């Protein structure tokens, strides 16, 4: 069972993982990325490529389901403006064995950083700048290459 959501609204962790927990797998691993208040950040804005985003996220969740024995995988990604402390993204996996759920969750968030069309811009006071991609994210995603 793969669930993908791209939405401006905040999400509840309990609500987002409830369908995974109902699959009877016994193990649910999840990762939540939040807006950090780095250097006086006022607002983070996520732009994305509607249509391609959903396809890319679904592809990441499907690849996770191929590589590990999963009962389900869920990715929720917010778009639009967010404040420090707000959740940006959730990657969650349900499996019968915890190792599968944990590895799939790590895989999905690593891949999401490099393989999904999102762009962050930061606002501090009247200044706004686009966040640069990080080589460490490329390296983290590459370690999953077969």
């Amino acid at each position, binding site marked *: 069972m793969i669930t993908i959501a791209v939405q401006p609204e905040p999400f509840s962790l309990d609500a987002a993982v409830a369908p995974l927990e109902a699959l009877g797998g016994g193990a649910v691993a999840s990762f939540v990325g939040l807006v950090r208040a780095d250097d006086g950040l006022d607002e983070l804005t996520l732009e994305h*490529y509607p249509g*391609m985003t959903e396809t890319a996220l679904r592809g990441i969740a499907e690849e996770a389901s191929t590589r590990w024995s999963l009962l389900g995988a869920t990715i929720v990604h917010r778009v639009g403006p967010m404040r420090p402390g707000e959740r*940006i*993204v959730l990657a969650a996996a349900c499996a019968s064995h915890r190792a599968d759920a944990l590895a799939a969750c790590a895989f999905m968030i690593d891949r999401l950083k490099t393989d999904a*069309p999102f*762009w962050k811009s930061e606002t501090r006071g009247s200044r706004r700048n686009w966040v640069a*991609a990080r080589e460490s994210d490329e390296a983290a995603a590459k370690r999953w290459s077969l």
Partner: protein
Amino acid sequence: MVTILYFAWVRELVGIDAERLEPPATNTTLGELADWLAERSEHHRAALSDRGNLRAAVDQRFASWDTALAGAKEIAFFPPVTGG
């Protein structure tokens, strides 16, 4: 006709988020299309000339500059992604 989309600072530099164009048939690869687009205006040139910091998708799939464009309907240019 092909739909060209721009995102993030590429969009801001070009000044528009989309345009519908008929590229010449000599543009057979994504890289050739980017070169042709860069000629359209100073804004296009500023956005599309630094190929090392530019990424693209053909019909909503990430693509390299040597990707063939035959039959492509939607082509997007954007910076390296920074989601998650």
